[in-house]
């Protein structure tokens, strides 16, 4: 519960983006999460990405399930509609919202309990359908709000704060998303904002199912020795395959990269993704290769991060359903009701 109202005034010299909005216009209420929570860093990255993309804040719909992560949409984009729905059911609510109005930007925020346990099915099916969305899982491997039970992304053999060893195998949501045909798949770390912000920006600009798994340590229940989702562990085992710069509009690509180290990917809307390769062998257009790479590195205890897969020619659910360009929620009687003459014909065919 937010007891403290956030002051609205800000420094007059605060920089503005192309639309004239300041950073503050993308903020929300004061977070009620624990001080130092990884989720708050992700919130800050979402704010930064939206500011940099010059998105109109009210044209974003923020949808979440239940849990610590699902509370965060209240803490960013205060002028957007938000929907803190039902545990594990964000994907279906988002799918319905997207069908109703294809013109908004859909940001789905979920957690590992929300998406890998109770909502595993909905996660999978929304990805399969290619809903145009940015699906972020704030992954801490633990149930925070109910005080520290393992979640389905907790690694086999990792230890809880109370010293219990996890004997269940972990679900890797990135691997599943790749297998199910997500057209933009990334993993990042809440502690690495420079990696995360461009990934979120690129995902928002991607037309199709974008999935980002963000390892986000739980400061209260999963930041101890023996945890594989602690700040220390993730920093030590982070294997970033690339670094991303997102270039919007017609601005030329910066030329200060060494030749051969940058791969430029152009998305549907003209957004250019400049990928600086950190691992020379990694190809983010190779879905099968990505799956293979991930599994090999996971076996070695490494956490692969970066833009892992992107299909710039992706199609979304609306394309599959061949719906009209006009948002369905704006169609009126004239557009929708066939009228009495058509009904008379139907009656005649039923005699």
């Amino acid at each position, binding site marked *: 519960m937010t007891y403290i109202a956030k002051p609205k005034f800000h420094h007059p010299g605060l920089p503005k983006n192309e639309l004239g909005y300041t950073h503050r216009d993308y903020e929300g209420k004061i977070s009620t999460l624990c001080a130092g929570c990884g989720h708050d860093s992700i919130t800050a990255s979402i704010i930064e990405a939206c500011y940099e993309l010059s998105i109109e804040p*009210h044209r974003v719909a923020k949808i979440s399930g239940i849990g610590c992560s699902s509370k965060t949409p209240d803490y960013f984009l205060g002028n*957007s509609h938000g929907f803190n729905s039902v545990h594990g059911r964000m994907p279906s609510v988002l799918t319905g919202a997207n069908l109703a109005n294809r013109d908004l930007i859909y940001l789905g925020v979920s957690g590992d309990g929300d998406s890998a346990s109770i909502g595993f099915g909905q996660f999978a099916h929304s990805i399969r359908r290619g809903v145009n969305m940015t699906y972020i899982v704030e992954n801490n491997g633990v149930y925070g709000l109910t005080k520290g039970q393992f979640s389905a992304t907790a690694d086999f053999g990792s230890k809880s704060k109370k010293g219990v060893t996890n004997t269940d195998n972990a679900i890797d949501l990135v691997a599943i998303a790749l297998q199910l045909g997500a057209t933009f798949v990334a993993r990042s770390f809440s502690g690495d904002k420079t990696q995360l912000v461009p990934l979120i920006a690129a995902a928002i600009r991607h037309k199709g199912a974008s999935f980002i798994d963000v390892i986000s340590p739980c400061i209260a229940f999963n930041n101890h020795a023996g945890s594989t989702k602690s700040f220390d562990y993730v920093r030590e085992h982070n294997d970033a395959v690339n670094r991303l710069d997102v270039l919007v509009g017609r601005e030329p690509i910066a030329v200060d990269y060494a030749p051969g180290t940058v791969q430029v990917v152009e998305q549907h809307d003209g957004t250019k993704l400049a990928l600086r390769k950190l691992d020379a062998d990694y190809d983010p257009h190779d879905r099968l290769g990505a799956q293979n790479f991930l599994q090999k590195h996971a076996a070695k205890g490494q956490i692969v991060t970066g833009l892992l897969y992107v299909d710039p020619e992706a199609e979304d659910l609306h394309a599959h359903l061949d719906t009209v360009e006009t948002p369905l929620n704006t169609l009126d009687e004239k557009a929708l009701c066939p009228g009495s003459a058509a009904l008379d014909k139907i009656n005649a065919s039923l005699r």
Partner: protein
Amino acid sequence: MPDQSPISSVNDFVVRFANVNGSGSASANELFARSILRHGVPVSPRNIFPSNIQGLPTWYEVRVTEDGHLGARGGVDMMVAMNPQTWDKDVASIEPGGYLFYDSTKPMPTSKFRADITVIGVPLTAITNSTYTDPRQRQLFKNIIYLGALSALFDMDYKLIEQLIGEQYKGKEKLLSSNVHALHLGRDWALQNLKCPIGLRVKKADKVGERIFIEGNSAAALGAVYGGATVCAWYPITPSSSVAEAFTSHCKRLRHDPETGKAKYAIVQGEDELASIGIVIGASWNGARAFTATSGPGISLMTEFIGLSYFAEIPAVIMNIQRAGPSTGMPTRTQQCDIIACAYASHGDTKHVLLFPEDPAEAFEFAAHSFDLAERLQTTIFLMLDLDIGMNHRLCRPLKWDDARQYDRGKVMTAEMLEEGRDFGRYLDVDGDGIPYRTYPGTHPTKGSYFTRGTSRDRYARYSEEGAVYADNMQRLVRKFETAQDLVPRPLQANAGKPTKYGVIYFGSTSPAMDEAIGLLEARGHHLDRLRIRAFPFHSSVASFIADHDFVYVVEQNRDAQLRSLIVNENGIDPVRLVPILHYDGTPITARFIANAIGDHQDHLKVTPLRKAVS
């Protein structure tokens, strides 16, 4: 000759076809029903089918009824026994003096027949085998051949059947002529070898009029098209799947942009019922008209979301095509057994609006209306059909639409209204009707956004766990439900010809059987005023109807008298005054059942006091 004189009846009898599921009999049987309609004689057909694709027994019953009694009658006057598996039971179910039609290719021992019925054998297999070589053709045309034979036995005008076949296979000449040929094979064999016609006959009449013949599920789906539904999410479940399938085919014909060819609708087959209702709620939250269709088990799965719809006040339309429960129950049998489950669906204090259409025409009207109600009331509206209405063709009045009708999109605050400085509180009751304003996402850059949640919040949608704030909101929801009372379809009352102390309440698919039962009861000297409930919350006329009578029978198709419980609970009625009349074996309720149950109870009330009898 049978030892009981054969039943003789024109335009008033029941034929039952006993078939094997998957044998292609359904279309021939439906053709039979339609061809009687073309004689100007009403029919009421019913599918009695198993939860199976191929091999198990299935029946199709056609009640020929010049008087227009569209409820199930009970009893069989002619059995078309095409299924050896069910032979004994089928033969046993024929009324004394009735008829048995069977395939006489293989001789049957006389012990397999009954002495009190007329047995009509046609060597169907022999005829088909001598005409066709392809096994599938043999199977399919056998059905048309028995139809031809029946047309001779019932003295039907075969040209009307030919005409129907012509309409069905328009443009497919080969199929058309081969079907007509098969029809005549059967008809000619019967005319040459049997005494035609028999005691059961179809005679041309003029009793169908402009009525149409349609399944309730298809009509409800059409109502969704006319009512402006743009998003449909569903998960296959008998007996509701044909709602979504019909919506799909109606939309393909009626909802594509003429210029671009693109769809003005989105249909998603969800991964389960949870996803289906989630999609509906997401779409409705975002200002589209959305619905799902399901049956009992689906309702159980959806209840968490239904509570969210109630508490966060998000429109949703759920079409519940009821089947016999609990659990998987009898998936292909009818009941009205989800009244309580829907009225109070979800944890915590909830109440939901239910609509009870009696036939496809009302299913169409109520379906279209349910979208207005959902958006006006910002809550879930249940359209309560059942298998009997949903999956059977029913003769009903033509569907009507007033072109001047506008959708009621409810209280939606627009960017202009926000710009004017209107106070926007998502859960603020500004008009005293309990209904707040809502905004669609993306309306205004700085005004009108709010955070939707299933947790408690104040009038301005700010999270709150204050007791007084919570109670204030719950009270407003009660006010809103009171407002609903005057928006939903009102009960319809029909009084007996003479003053009576007794009344009867009924709803939904019980309607035609009830109407017919009234006549049977009057013949026994029992007069009852009738009230057909068409919606929950109950209009005040329900309580006054009960107050006006000593006893009121409540007729329903479930074991636990669910509607009666709802009436008692919501209106504080003394339960003794409501006498339950319950039918719940999965078959559609019949006039005979109602008349017997009520008649017996009434006779009991009229027992002469002992003293009088003695003196």
